[in-house]
């Protein structure tokens, strides 16, 4: 039989939705044109899973064309891409409010509507390449991998995990000036994923892929608590949140997710949404299930230490136990049989997923630690402001400055800056917010250093407030 010759991919005619950046940028702006994503006047989004502030008015100034570089992972553009991509991914999931659906019906229709679906489908792959393209450079897998070298590699990881006695998240919490706040911040970071636990994984139960499919499903049975609602892992996490006074509705704390937490959450969707990445996913899953065992044991202890016996740690206890099984199940029942069935050629994909998950988890831990330290240092950063301001006034080469005049109640949706900034109040009062229920009050003549990549927002607490934002780049240059 004669096969028709297909053009090679670089000879195929260009199609706007696939190849044209400007077309993407227009679709992204259109996607942002929705009340669902506009700025809001409160810090929390209560019981409305469709409302997600994305600061879409800034979309048109951002460039998503070139993949992020390793040192840009926590920039404003990255944060925006992460918030937007997660919103698109989650339109594949069933999200319903707990109460009063009628008043949110229009939001639901819009969130799942044709417009959002079509635009989301165009925008998603661009954002994926933008966010995760760097992984190809950051992590390289080479050499001739065999079943036994892979086994050796992973077994040494498991042994290392068993010996591990520290958990950087727990350490960040315990060494914070305000461990309770740090612990809540941590729980909020995890909530984005845990309150929808195994939704990304659930993308893998359909299809037809032999015995691996049944193994995947068995893990999901545990995740979903054997159909007993109270024991579903996300239900256990709801109980954890509530036991320390946090809301348990998904994404109540949307504004307080750090870029890295969103990035990690997006990553699992990234490898599950496109089934061409299935082998990467099982590698990432193995890493997650294995790393989770010790992390959960430490978190249970840490939360008890910080909150006392009232905190519900069943979520963490459950995982310290069941993930020992999951780790082994993924390895013995999925990874090994997959290599046997499909050949050693898939090993680099598996190892890649494993390494990528590990790498992004490390980024998330560090970002969390940095945010805690920065937030703990509010008084210090406030103290530095007048001197830096004086130095700016006296210097001949002034950094770029923007003036804002805002009325009472004006809320700046949380965001980050790519360099250090000085926020300085000319008149009125601003509450400068560095986390959920964590803020400093700034009066006229006061200000604060905003460190690069640190999440913050603000709300005006006087009739009017005039303030300046100086883009100082590196605050230390302005100290002497």
């Amino acid at each position, binding site marked *: 039989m004669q096969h028709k010759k297909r053009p090679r991919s670089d000879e195929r005619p260009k199609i706007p939705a696939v190849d044209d950046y400007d077309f993407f940028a227009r679709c992204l702006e259109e996607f942002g044109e929705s009340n669902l994503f506009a700025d809001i006047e409160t810090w929390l989004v209560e019981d409305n899973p469709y409302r997600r502030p994305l600061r879409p008015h800034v979309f048109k100034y951002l460039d998503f064309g070139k993949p992020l570089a390793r040192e840009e992972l926590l920039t404003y553009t990255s944060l925006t891409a992460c918030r937007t991509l997660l919103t698109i991914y989650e339109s594949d999931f069933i999200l319903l409010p707990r109460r009063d659906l009628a008043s949110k019906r229009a939001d639901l229709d819009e969130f799942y509507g044709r417009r959002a679906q079509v635009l989301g489908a165009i925008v998603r792959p661009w954002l994926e390449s933008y966010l995760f393209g760097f992984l190809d450079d950051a992590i390289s897998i080479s050499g001739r991998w065999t079943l036994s070298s892979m086994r050796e590699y992973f077994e040494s990881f498991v042994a290392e995990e068993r010996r591990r006695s520290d958990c950087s998240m727990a350490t960040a919490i315990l060494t914070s000036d305000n461990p309770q706040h740090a612990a809540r911040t941590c729980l909020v970071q995890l909530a984005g994923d845990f309150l929808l636990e195994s939704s990304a994984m659930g993308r893998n139960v359909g299809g037809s892929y032999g015995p691996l499919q049944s193994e995947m499903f068995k893990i999901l049975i*545990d995740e979903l608590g054997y159909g007993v609602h109270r024991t579903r892992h996300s239900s256990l996490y709801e109980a954890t949140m509530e036991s320390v006074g946090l809301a348990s509705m998904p994404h109540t704390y949307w504004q307080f997710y750090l870029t890295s937490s969103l990035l990690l959450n997006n990553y699992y969707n990234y490898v599950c949404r496109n089934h061409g990445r299935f082998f990467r996913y099982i590698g990432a899953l193995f890493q997650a299930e294995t790393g989770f065992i010790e992390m959960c044991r430490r978190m249970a202890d840490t939360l008890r230490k910080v909150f006392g016996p009232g905190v519900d740690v069943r979520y963490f206890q459950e995982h310290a136990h069941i993930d020992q099984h999951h780790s082994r199940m993924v390895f013995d029942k999925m990874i090994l049989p997959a290599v046997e069935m499909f050949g050693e050629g898939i090993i680099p994909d598996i190892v890649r997923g494993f390494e990528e998950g590990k790498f992004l988890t490390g980024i998330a831990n560090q970002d969390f630690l940095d945010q805690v330290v920065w937030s703990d240092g509010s008084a210090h950063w406030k103290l530095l402001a007048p001197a830096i301001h004086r130095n700016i006034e006296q210097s001949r080469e002034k950094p770029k400055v923007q003036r804002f005049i805002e009325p009472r109640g004006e809320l700046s949706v949380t965001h980050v800056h790519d360099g250090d900034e000085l926020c300085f109040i000319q008149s009125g009062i601003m509450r400068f917010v560095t986390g959920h229920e964590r803020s400093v009050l700034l009066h006229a003549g006061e200000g604060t250093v905003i460190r690069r990549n640190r999440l913050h927002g603000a709300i005006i607490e006087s009739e009017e407030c005039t303030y300046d934002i100086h883009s100082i780049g590196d605050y230390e240059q302005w100290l002497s």
Partner: protein
Amino acid sequence: MAVVTFDPGHARFVKAGSRSFFLSTTDGRVFHLLRTTCPHRGGPLHLGQLDASRGVIRCPWHDNDIPLRCLERDAAPLVMRPGSATAVLPDPGGEPITVDGRLILATQR
């Protein structure tokens, strides 16, 4: 308690209220009516894998090897005779006792 007689050639799965049992043997001579519920997380032991030489059933959910010794301690009292079996079951609490021929993997064939 309730007594039920059934044909083990056709039916090997017995339900009395909330508890269920399955008929299992390692040698085709001695039979036990074992609880189906795995002591770990309630996995379906009748769908597990019988390893007669080691005297265990491997649960299909998390692969724990459950010793037959332990399961036999909780087995329902049972009399086997050619063509029929009679078991003494826990009180089904007003619910009917059912016997059926559903798929059982954890037995010698």
